[in-house]
C-alpha cells in the first residue's frame, strides 16, 4: 500500500510488480488464494484535490468496488467479465486473471464524503477533493 506521494518514488517497483502479476496465474495447488492484477494508474494533484485514473478493462459498474475504510485507506477492487463463446480453449494469455485490486492510503486532508467515481470504457476516474480548510490560500501581504 502506498500514499499518492510515495507513488512518484516507487513508480519503477510498481511497474515491475504489475508485469509479474500479469504473467502469474492461480497455482493449481492453491485454489483458495486468488491472484489479483495491479491496475495501472495515473495520479494528478492540483489545488482542488487529486484525480486518479485506473485501467480496468472488462469491468462493469456492478463489478467495481471503490471504498474508503475506517483506517483511511482507499480500496479499489474489480472483476472483469468478458463474454466468450462456449467451448473456448485459451491459446495465448497476456492477462491471466480477471481480478484487479489496489489500495492507497489517504491523508486526512481529503474529504472522503465527496469522492466522485466514474467508469467509462474500462477506465475509472476518481476525484478526491481536498477539504476546504486544506486548500491552499493566498495570503495577502499588507504594506504601509
Amino acid at each position, binding site marked *: 500500500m502506498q500514499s499518492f506521494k510515495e*507513488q512518484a518514488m516507487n513508480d519503477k517497483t510498481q511497474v515491475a510488480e504489475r508485469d509479474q502479476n500479469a504473467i502469474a496465474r492461480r497455482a493449481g495447488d492453491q485454489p483458495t488464494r486468488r491472484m489479483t492484477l495491479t491496475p495501472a494508474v495515473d495520479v494528478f494533484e492540483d489545488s482542488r484535490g487529486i484525480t486518479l485514473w485506473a485501467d480496468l478493462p*472488462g469491468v462493469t459498474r456492478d463489478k467495481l468496488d471503490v471504498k474508503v475504510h475506517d483506517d483511511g485507506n482507499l480500496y479499489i477492487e474489480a472483476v472483469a467479465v468478458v463474454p466468450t*463463446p462456449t467451448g*473456448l480453449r485459451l491459446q495465448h494469455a*497476456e492477462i491471466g486473471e480477471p481480478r484487479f485490486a489496489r489500495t492507497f492510503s489517504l491523508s486526512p486532508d481529503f474529504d472522503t464524503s465527496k469522492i466522485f467515481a466514474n467508469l467509462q470504457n474500462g477506465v475509472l476516474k476518481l476525484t478526491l477533493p481536498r477539504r476546504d480548510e486544506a486548500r491552499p490560500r493566498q495570503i495577502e501581504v499588507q504594506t504601509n
Partner: protein
Amino acid sequence: MSDLYSGTDLFSEFDRLQRQMESLFGGLPSSIRSSRFGAFPQINIGTTDDSIEIVAFAPGVDVAGLDVAIDRGLLTISGERKPAQSDAGDDTRTYAQERFTGPFRRAIELPQNADPDKVQARYTNGCLSVSVGKRESSKPKAITVQ
C-alpha cells in the same frame, strides 16, 4: 468449460514458460511480428470449433480511432490512446503515470483456416473482441466408422 483467463492446456503453459524464459535470458526466438511482453493493448487468444476469438484489453480508447484490419492472414489492431488529463494546468503535479498513452499497433498471425470474410469486432467496457470464423472445410468432423 470456457474460460478466457486461465488456460490449462499445454499450449498456454508452454507460452507462459517461454515468456518467463524470455524475461530471464532476453530472447528465445518468437514471431518476428510479436511485440515485447507487456505491450499495449494486452491480448488473449482462444479458439472454438467455429472461430478464433481475440480479446484486446484496450481501456479508454476512442472507438472512432480504433482500426482492425486483416491482410493475408495477419490481423492488425491499431489506434491511439490519448492522455487522460489533457487540461493539466500549471499547478498540476503528477505522482504516477503508469497508463499507456500514444499510438499502438499489435499484429496477430491467424492460422491458415481463418476466413477473412467472417470477422466481427466489438468494443465494450474497454475490451475489443474480434471473432474470426474458420473455413467450413477446416471444422472438426465426426467420422463414421463403417
